[in-house]
């Protein structure tokens, strides 16, 4: 294991030098001694090459998209185009302060304005705010909009939001943060919303319905029109969790099939990097009647150019970010949309769907699939056969995949499929790459039979072997004990 950066520190070493002090005023003449730190913070001291030789080997311990397939379901780990990385590093984008006069921000403002328009067109919704910093914050923003809409109409009694049992955990957590009660909707035998159950729980207290479509089983909710009409009949609002929008690009506009609002995950659908867990970006799109409630500011355009539009601030839910959200992520998404155009985006959805179905066809004889029908951009296999026959569970299979050079799928989710493995290959994988992943999965199925010990011990070839999570929670060692 690599030493920590604190263990390789050498007193007096410097990685960067600043110009000499000019003016040089003694600190205690400008800031009272009372406020000054007595003992300097023990920041490690290293030369630049020491720093490089610490972080570059660390990077090599990561799996990443450019090493191999990264089939995390509902995460859309597609390739991140290098062009977008180069373009976003233009100093004229990097070195902009958020409070500069608008006249000096016109290039970035135009880009964001056009991105708002493009996302509105892609979603079939009327207006878009780019402010939320991530998908979960997009959800929070959307649910706050629902809350504010109902309260603006005096409907303060609407206290519940309905969410399917297959939903991402962020959905109920976001609703709780806004103050809603969450009512869980059952899935039916076909992996879709159970309409009879829905009818039994919808009433005048229903503020809205949060749905992922395609859902986390990778299935299109084909009763969407009826669901929307049930929810709308009690003046509830239909929220789309846009995590799986990749499957719908150019095929379906959410705003035209019953949804009133949604969030986008720019880091999933629009190829911006996931950054090891962020920054992402979670814009929110709404229909006209919800537009007055969007966060402020939006990016507007008039005859003088582009500007921060606060015109709806009296009705707005307010703000969810100090400034305007994760601008550098938005720029990349704009570059991506400009590169692909309408046909390219539709082609993305088609190939994402074909890749997922192809992969399912390759492994379906080896792994149980609870909902065996054509899927959208992802599907859920499971290890119930392997568990029953050989005592091998999904965790073991996931870890063995790491040995074979692949990242594991999303595991044990959705919760309604026991031993779930949620697989989303994305459109940027080639047929060869899918063949190789399927071959690894089939090999593992074979190993379950012939050498189950191998699976219990996996992974064997990774930078560390299976990690003790229980001990981590017990130790709660979350920072290095720096020595003086």
């Amino acid at each position: 294991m690599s030493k920590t950066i604190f263990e390789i520190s050498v007193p007096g070493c410097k990685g960067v030098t600043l110009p000499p002090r000019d003016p040089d005023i003694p600190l205690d003449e400008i800031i009272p001694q009372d406020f000054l730190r007595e003992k300097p913070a023990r920041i490690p001291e290293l030369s630049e090459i020491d720093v490089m030789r610490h972080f570059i080997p660390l990077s090599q311990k990561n799996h990443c998209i450019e090493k191999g397939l990264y089939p995390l379901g509902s995460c859309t780990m597609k390739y991140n185009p290098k062009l977008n990385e180069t373009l976003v590093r233009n100093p004229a984008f990097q070195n902009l302060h958020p409070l500069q006069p608008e006249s000096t921000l016109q290039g970035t403002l135009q880009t964001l304005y056009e991105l708002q328009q493009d996302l509105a067109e892609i979603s079939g919704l009327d207006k878009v705010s780019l402010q939320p910093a991530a998908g979960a914050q997009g959800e929070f923003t959307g649910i706050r909009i629902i809350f504010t809409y109902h309260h603006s109409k005096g409907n303060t009694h609407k206290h519940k939001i309905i969410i399917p049992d297959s939903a991402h955990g962020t959905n109920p957590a976001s609703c709780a943060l806004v103050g809603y009660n969450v009512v869980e909707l059952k899935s039916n035998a076909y992996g879709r919303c159970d309409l009879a159950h829905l009818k039994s729980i919808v009433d005048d207290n229903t503020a809205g319905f949060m749905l992922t479509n395609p859902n986390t089983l990778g299935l299109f909710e084909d009763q969407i029109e009826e669901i929307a009409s049930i929810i709308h009949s009690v003046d509830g609002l239909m929220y789309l969790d846009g995590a799986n929008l990749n499957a719908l690009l150019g095929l379906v506009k959410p705003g035209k099939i019953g949804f009133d609002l949604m969030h986008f995950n720019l880091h999933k659908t629009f190829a911006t990097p996931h950054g090891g867990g962020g920054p992402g970006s979670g814009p929110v799109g709404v229909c006209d009647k919800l537009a007055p409630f969007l966060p402020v500011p939006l990016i507007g355009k008039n005859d003088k150019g582009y500007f921060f539009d606060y015109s709806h601030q009296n009705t707005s839910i307010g703000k969810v970010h100090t400034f305007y959200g994760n601008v550098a992520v938005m720029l990349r998404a704009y570059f991506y949309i400009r590169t692909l155009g309408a046909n390219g985006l539709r082609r993305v959805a088609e190939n994402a769907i074909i890749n997922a179905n192809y992969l399912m066809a390759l492994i379906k004889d080896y792994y149980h699939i609870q909902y065996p029908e054509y899927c959208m951009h992802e599907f859920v296999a499971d290890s119930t056969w392997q568990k029953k026959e050989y005592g091998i569970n999904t965790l073991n299979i996931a870890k063995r995949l790491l040995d074979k050079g692949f990242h594991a799928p999303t595991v044990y989710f959705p919760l309604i499929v026991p031993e779930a493995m949620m697989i989303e290959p994305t459109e940027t994988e080639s047929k060869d790459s899918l063949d190789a992943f399927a071959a690894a999965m089939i090999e593992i199925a074979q190993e379950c039979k012939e050498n189950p010990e191998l699976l219990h011990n996996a992974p064997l070839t990774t930078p560390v072997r299976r990690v003790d999570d229980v001990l981590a929670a017990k130790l709660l060692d979350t920072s290095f004990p720096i020595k003086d």
Partner: protein
Amino acid sequence: MPYIPNTDEERKQMLEKIGVHSFEELIQAIPEKLRLKKPLNLTSPLSELELTQLVNLLASQNIDTQKFSCFLGAGVYDHFIPAAVDTIVSRPEFYTAYTPYQAEVSQGTLQYIYEYQTLICELTGMEISNASMYDGATAVAEAILMAVRKNRLKKAIISPTIHPEFIKVIQSYTAGIGLELIFCHTKDGRIDIDDLTSKMDENVGSVVIQTPNFLGNIESMNELEKVVHSNPKTLLIVSVDPISLAILKPPSSYKADIVTGEGQALGNNMYMGGPLFGFFATHKDMARLMPGRIVGATVDVEGKKAYTLTLQTREQHIRREKATSNICSNQSLCTLAATVYLSLLGKEGLIEVATQSAQKSHFLAQEIAYIPKFSLCYPETPFFKEFAVYCPVPAKRVIQDMLNKHIFAGVDLKPYGYDENTLLIAVTEKKTRTELEEYANALREMHYE
């Protein structure tokens, strides 16, 4: 087709293997009438060369802080970033990975987060840091929610000198739980301690103070802390500038309970305000109440040191509506930039950044104070790298006039509820003495009446 490797021939082979004749058979589940009948109305696709040309044109419509001299702050700062930061952050192994769900192939990400957490603890003096939040505003909002989880008290006192945009975000985040937000008065650009004292009662769950505050002034935390903790249940939440902690007392020294702040200044480009990242640190006995991801050290089956995401039972993917937060991501790559930045600067380098920022800002403040009709708003109050100036004309006009001289003069405080003649000026180590003198001269030559 860009970024889609499969040829039409391969696509055909794949459809055959699936057992269908056309793509349309795969989307039978989508009712025919819901499907789009015509292509999206987007501009035509651009080649790499065309896009580069378009983007260069767009970028040329911006005027950035390399072209004009920047004295803007208010939460986002133009500090120097060493070249090696971007070299490391640009490694695909770091930026194309996701949340380290599979620890065995994510040790790189996990270890730098552990190191980042250590650095935040060292700067703040606290015991445990999370893996970061979206920005300084959400970090402080989540801190207030955490205080409610801890003591169930539904009143929070907010210092009037915290960033006004933080207040808006706090209002968004706390509206749902019916928290009562109480605002104190200011005195000399700081929280009025007598007013705070009068507003304290047994139902106050937290007091939120920013230092240096929105106006750049350093709050008297030792005295304020005693007032806050006059109710033993009340938690002291602070929002701090991490650069300032190189030379200012760490929040642990004044018994802060939760320490948050905006981390952008640590090695992250401004990008018109995002991405930013918020840091969040507290005492270990409140670890299970914390929001966000946390990395912990452990061992693998061979006893080798390893890192993993820990205390996950607090989080939304397990606890759903009972989670401590809805947050799923952190701002991982921004914390990597911060970790590399701090490693390159080292102990002395960070002190140098903070010291030079303080020296240069005080130098400029003195210069401006000498200009007829200009004055410092709070001449008796200590500040760090940012200060408010009272101008003889509206700040908006000063900003426009200075813009003509290629200077971003500062932030107009009028939109934040201050007098229209107040201008907030930030100075970092990047400014040369010449730039400071040019600023003062430009202002002097305006000859405002």
